[in-house]
């Protein structure tokens, strides 16, 4: 296709992506160097028959004036990145000098909001992704073994958790495991502990969200693996059976190597999706004990008094860097393949 034709065909979609994905990233980058204005305060002298008092109040008029003149806020450089709510450089230095053992230091650091969220996000990715691959593969193998006639409805039932939005999916589960729901109430009875509930324990909350993640993402892995299983050639498997290979050996040495590219694809996609975990935290109302990077940004953006654009933007930039680190191996590999292919 000539370059000129390509240009006109690609223009609309390219423009949409540049304007609404490319520019926002730049806009986020710029915003992250600014912070909201401080409120202007003035001294008000109040005199009554008993004497005069000087009080400090917020000068709303002045504050609005400054905000209107410079809506982006004041320039803050890397200040937002290093403050307590983000990388917390000063706090970490302080903890390093003050704490006695390394354990205590780690404890202190993981209580800082950004690191807390980072650790939750990484834990979530680390536990959900491999389990999704495993469960998805097992379901695919298992469904592949049932009669063709009844597979349709079974596949439909399997993909339900995936097609609902994460907020709805987590709500539906939450209403069951809540202390007043069917599962929660029964667990309370079983354990004989009327105070046992999801919200009472941080570990329980984390486990619940991780289980939710596996429940929500496994169907995707299943669908892809199931399709890949249909393309596995029959002859080598038959040869292996004649040679006396066990079922496990057949899967390990023939099926898995054949679908290996698909496994990396699923791993990549679910890693990308898991890194942005956010809606289940709202669905499970787990803000108290589990916060993710995306949730931190959301929290800044729905802040009631002033929207913390700078703070949200700084967290966003660091999230984007995180994504870049995750994607780097794949991109490097694709580039090498592309170079050798030419």
């Amino acid at each position, binding site marked *: 296709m000539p370059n000129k034709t390509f240009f006109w065909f690609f223009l609309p979609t390219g423009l949409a992506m540049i304007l609404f994905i490319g520019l926002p990233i730049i806009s986020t980058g710029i915003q992250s160097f600014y912070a909201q204005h401080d409120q202007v305060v003035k001294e008000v002298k109040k005199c009554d028959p008993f004497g005069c008092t000087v009080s400090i109040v917020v000068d709303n008029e002045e504050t609005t004036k400054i905000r209107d003149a410079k809506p982006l806020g004041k320039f803050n450089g890397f200040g937002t990145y290093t403050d307590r709510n983000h990388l917390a450089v000063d706090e970490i230095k302080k903890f390093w000098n003050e704490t006695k053992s390394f354990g205590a230091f780690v404890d202190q650091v993981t209580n800082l909001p950004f690191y807390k969220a980072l650790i939750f996000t990484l834990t979530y990715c680390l536990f959900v992704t491999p389990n999704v691959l495993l469960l998805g593969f097992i379901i695919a193998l298992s469904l592949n073994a049932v009669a063709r006639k009844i597979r349709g409805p079974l596949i439909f039932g399997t993909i339900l958790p995936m097609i609902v939005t994460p907020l709805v999916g987590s709500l539906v589960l939450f209403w069951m495991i809540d202390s007043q729901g069917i599962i929660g109430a029964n667990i309370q009875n079983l354990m004989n502990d009327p105070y046992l509930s999801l919200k009472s324990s941080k570990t329980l909350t984390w486990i619940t969200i991780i289980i939710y993640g596996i429940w929500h993402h496994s169907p995707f892995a299943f669908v892809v693996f199931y*399709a890949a299983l249909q393309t596995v050639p029959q002859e080598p498997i038959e040869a292996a059976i004649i040679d006396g290979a066990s079922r496990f050996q057949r899967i390990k040495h023939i099926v898995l190597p054949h679908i290996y590219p698909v496994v990396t694809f699923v791993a990549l996609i679910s890693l990308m999706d898991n890194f942005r975990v956010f809606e289940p935290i709202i669905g499970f109302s787990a803000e108290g004990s589990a916060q993710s990077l995306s949730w931190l940004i959301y929290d800044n953006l729905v802040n009631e008094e002033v929207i913390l654009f700078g703070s949200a933007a700084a967290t966003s930039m660091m999230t984007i860097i995180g994504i870049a680190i995750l*994607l780097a191996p794949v991109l490097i590999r694709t580039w090498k393949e592309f170079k050798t292919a030419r």
Partner: protein
Amino acid sequence: MDYGLDTKSARLKTFNTIFIIVWLLIACFPFIWTFWGSFKVRADFFSRSDWWYAISAFNTLIETGGKFTVNAYTEAWTEGEFWKASKNTIIVTVFVVSISLFLGTLGAYALSRSTEKYAFWILMAALIFRAMPHITLVSGYLFPFFELQIWGILPTTIVVLVAINQPFTLWLLYSFFKTVPKELDESALIDGCSYFQAFRHIIMPVMWPGVITAGLFSLMLAYNDFTVTALLLNQENHTMVPKIQSYLGTNQHEGNLMWAVSAVVSATAPLFMLVMFFQRQVISGLTAGAVKG
């Protein structure tokens, strides 16, 4: 896998059946339970005293005189203004799907027919864009949208959702266009068609399965979106998913939690029916990217 040579022991078969039944229960029961519970009153579905009330409908019987009640639905749809939210969802979904498909087919066709290096880099860039968490993009939008005073209205959200959706649509349609033989449009070009005419009259007619799949995924994205719609729309224009969340936030009102339950069922039912109808397309879409590598 059904091979003539592959004999399965009875034990393995039983084990397999049990596993599938257990998994289907885990996958489907929450939805069945929510559907069932949406016809009860709150004191039954969220019972403080006995979870069996949700089945025996103890309080529902006392409060409404019947075992099932549609109060939660009628209240959510009228008083809770869920009708407005569903109207907004329909508007957003229809526009997002049609615009996405229009832009996506043109772009993906060009990408699939280009032999230049930049086509590869554009696809890579789209992959990176696909990986961006939506909330980071939203944090980029909010400030400029406030300044331009286009925050809170439906058209802005539609355009944003279309753009966010483009990378995935491009990849999906690209892999579908690749399966259409090049000779088809080349012969049309020789016969004197322009590229656009070849695209319009030769390629599009054979592309319907791919277009339907891409349309379904755009639909699911627009219909299910929470991040963008919750932050870019004002209260008045909220679509279904943010509306459901707003019911949760106002817990002091006794009826609101049941509004959320019935709203969840109302929002999920059409989606399930759609997927039941188009199951084949959904699955081919999910695998298109994978099988092609």
